[in-house]
């Protein structure tokens, strides 16, 4: 069964007015013709089936049985990062929620036995078998741990490391641990009890599988007694904070613990005077707002009810418009680093262009993922002159790194934790 009730959101599909707002940067913030687009899928594949307004049409045709699944239609549904840009844009004016329908389409494909795509199934298999997306032994989850960092056996703060930092970019986990230690924060980790957050499952429509991994992690976190869970990965962060409550039908505030991205936590420490950056980092950088840390990160408010005349939700439903995404903590942290100069790209915050990696795109449509990243790199170079594009999600960083390598861009990509680690330790001591 799909997690989303299409009968509730069918009204949106029927009442899309095809204004195409979902494809464009907020018209106030649009600063140039070159960087005026906001939907990577529509910008790359051009046909309207690859825009949210077209996918509304697809959903109606599939729900009404007028359209049968085919490899091409699966591509039209899955060649999308689920970056949430269309949602923010549509909610700004027309008040519809295309993301609900985009996600439903994937869940429906799975329900009908047609989705997800083979690349997604492969990852799902690894998660089922090894509890991480790479198929590595989950017992190795703590291999990243550096010498000199003590994990607390019991603490209020739990660091949810994530698959990428545990097994691939372990330097990010090490830098995170050093930053937490530098702020005097006792923290624990789940170690082998940490399973993949489930984002690679939920985002491709594998709801039952996502529920299983979420159930395990929720139990492990609650058993640990943590009051606060910190993630340095935007995907893990948003999955814990938003998807878990969605999957089990409650609100974020009822999770029983607070979920923070590392940047939010360190920003608090910075404001409290418990984090200082004594070492300058002489660099001109620009910042990539990860979609799942920014516009998609507002807390989940559980809603149950019916849809009445004019599409009114009864009882009233709180919309997640992207207004209160975590845009500023990372910026405040970067601005606090001596020597570092932050230059903004034209498309920023809620209007940021996706890195290209999310929603299962990097796994199933690698060329599209890299094309999307290259569009962003071009913007960084042409509008900021930055030496580095800094992000706060390892998947953004990974995708940018590959795009930079393939295109020989005069730019590097860094995770914000790497930069902050440089600013708290003398040169060469950060990792």
């Amino acid at each position: 069964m799909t997690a989303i009730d299409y009968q509730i959101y069918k009204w949106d599909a029927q009442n899309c007015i095809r204004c195409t707002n979902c494809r464009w940067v907020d018209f106030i913030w649009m600063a140039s013709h070159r960087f005026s687009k906001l939907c990577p899928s529509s910008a790359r594949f051009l046909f309207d089936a690859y825009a949210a307004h077209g996918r509304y049409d697809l959903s109606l045709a599939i729900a009404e049985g007028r359209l049968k699944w085919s490899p091409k239609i699966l591509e039209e549904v899955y060649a999308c990062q689920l970056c949430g840009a269309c949602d923010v844009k549509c909610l700004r004016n027309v008040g519809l929620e295309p993301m609900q329908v985009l996600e439903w389409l994937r869940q429906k494909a799975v329900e009908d036995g047609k989705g997800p795509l083979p690349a997604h199934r492969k990852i799902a298999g690894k998660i089922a078998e090894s509890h991480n997306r790479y198929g590595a032994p989950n017992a190795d989850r703590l291999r990243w741990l550096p010498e000199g960092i003590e994990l607390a056996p019991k603490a209020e703060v739990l660091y949810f490391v994530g698959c990428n930092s545990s097994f691939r970019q372990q330097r990010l986990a090490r830098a995170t641990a050093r930053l937490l230690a530098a702020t005097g924060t006792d923290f624990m980790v789940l170690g082998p009890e940490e399973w993949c957050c489930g984002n690679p499952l939920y985002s491709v429509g594998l709801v039952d599988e996502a529920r299983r991994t979420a159930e395990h992690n929720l139990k492990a976190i609650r058993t640990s007694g943590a009051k606060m869970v910190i993630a340095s990965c935007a995907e893990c962060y948003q999955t814990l904070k938003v998807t878990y409550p969605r999957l089990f039908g409650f609100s974020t505030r009822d999770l029983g613990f607070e979920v923070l991205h590392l940047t939010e936590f360190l920003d608090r420490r910075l404001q409290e005077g418990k984090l200082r950056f004594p070492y300058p980092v002489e660099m001109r950088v620009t910042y990539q707002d990860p979609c799942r840390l920014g516009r998609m990160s507002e807390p989940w408010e559980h809603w149950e009810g019916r849809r009445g005349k004019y599409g009114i939700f009864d009882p009233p439903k709180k919309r997640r418009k992207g207004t209160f995404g975590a845009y500023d903590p990372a910026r405040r942290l970067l601005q606090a680093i001596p020597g570092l100069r932050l230059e903004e790209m034209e498309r920023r915050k809620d209007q940021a262009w996706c890195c290209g990696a999310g929603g299962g795109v990097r796994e199933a449509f690698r060329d599209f993922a890299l094309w999307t990243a290259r569009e962003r790199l071009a913007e960084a170079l042409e509008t900021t002159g930055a030496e580095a594009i800094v992000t706060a999600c390892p998947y953004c960083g990974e995708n940018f790194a590959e795009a930079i390598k393939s295109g020989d861009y005069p730019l590097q990509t860094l995770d914000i934790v790497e930069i902050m680690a440089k600013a708290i330790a003398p040169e060469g001591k950060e990792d």
Partner: protein
Amino acid sequence: MAISKEAYRALESIVGPEFISDDPGVRECYRKGGYGKNRPALEGQALKPACVILPGSTKEVQEILKVCHRYRIPFVPVGCFMIATQSPKVPDVLTIDLKRMDDLEIDERNMYAVCGPGVIYAQLQAEALKRGLATEGPGCGVGATVIGNHLNAGVGPLEYRMGWAQRRMLAVEWVLPDGEIVNLGSAAMNEGDFFWGEGLGPDLRGVLRGTFGWQGGLGIVTKMATKLFPFPSQRLERTGVSPHTGFNLPPDLIKWINVFYPDIESAANAMSELSKAQVGMALMTAPFTWRYFSRAESKEDFHEKWRRDLPELQKTTPHMMRIMLVGLAGPKQLEYEERVVRDVIARVGGDLREGRPFDESWINNADAHRIFFPGGAETSMKFHFDSLDASMELAKAAAELKKKYTPPLIEDYGIPGWLQMGDFGHVAFCEILVYFDPTTDPNDCYMHEVGFVESVRQDLALRAYCGLQGSYGPEPQIIGPHYGNYHLLEEEFKKAFDPENISNPPRPLDYAYGVDLKIDLSPMQGAGGNR
């Protein structure tokens, strides 16, 4: 797919396999347009195209149309496809999606832009503002394509100074339905020179433009130059996170003044007097519904507050007139214009208040589609250009008529639309909107249609200019005789330029309105009289 394999291969050879598709999913998404899709006359008859193609250049458009002409394939050009008139209405259509053709060049010194058919207003405005220039964001929103809107009516709030879009049209490159290219204005004499609109002999721009235009019925305009205007954009400051984004206005250069009146006559009188002074950038009345739309957090919030405040609003019926002042030559101009406005209002009366130094609606018309937000659908019951007196009378009559159909139309306490001055007061535009839910109760849609027909009857009775003709309204042979038999002239043009009838047939002359609804249109035949 009813386009033959041979024709498909010919089309594919022009654009390459990446830019043509007969996939059922792709075709499904080109069936329905946006605005007006809830009109049974439009959506009810919308068909899937047989195939969709994305040309990248004028040459490709030309070759595509030649193939269409050779194989007698009907085609429908779409820009942003915001309007339902680009829904295929005959079977086996080739939809030509022009979004790849988004070249944009601005001649800063000579203040004009040359646009491809895929360029939207927001892109043009973004580039123009960078150069201290501006265009007018149309009332339908800046997601509209520049060319599509210029070939339509092109009404927007800044028309008071900048004029309608169709009047800003300069040189044009136009591919006829048989693939022949026609250049108009300076482009006819010097290839690539789009500086000037007029040419030697008859001006064929007159064939292209007109209210609601040809709806793709006369081929494809592939390039068009449009005038730009000076604007002190350097100090506009973008601010906010969605949905609260807007421009902070430099208070010494741009200012809104709002004046409140107890009745529409007083507001119109003030607009007339202000127009005589020829100051300002925009001058119009604004219904209070807009304020509620823009401030509402959600549909539920809107309907709750609207219901709460309606009794009070119905008692006071405040009419708000707004004027935007811009110091194009600097702060002194703004000071002067403000003094003029204050003098005029002191003379004619009105409760004058300074507006917030903030703009989200007028310079870049970013929130135009909020009008769809309360109900799900919105259509224009009137779309009328005339003298201010005539427009005002029509607005009042329309408000009365609308009461008959409210509910199911959403209540507006008697101010269902707005008056807007164009060309420094030489014309007054009146648009009356209706908001409704087209999906929950089919009867609402039917009632809306009945009200719409009644509205046209009203136009005829009042001898008003009926702007919603052709595919939007009653059959042309019924209303045509009331308006100089314009439809016969359109038929002649259509035959001359599109003898095979392959360019978005049967538009713009659509003879199927009302048939499905069984609405009796015969009383119109005797109503009114020839103008």
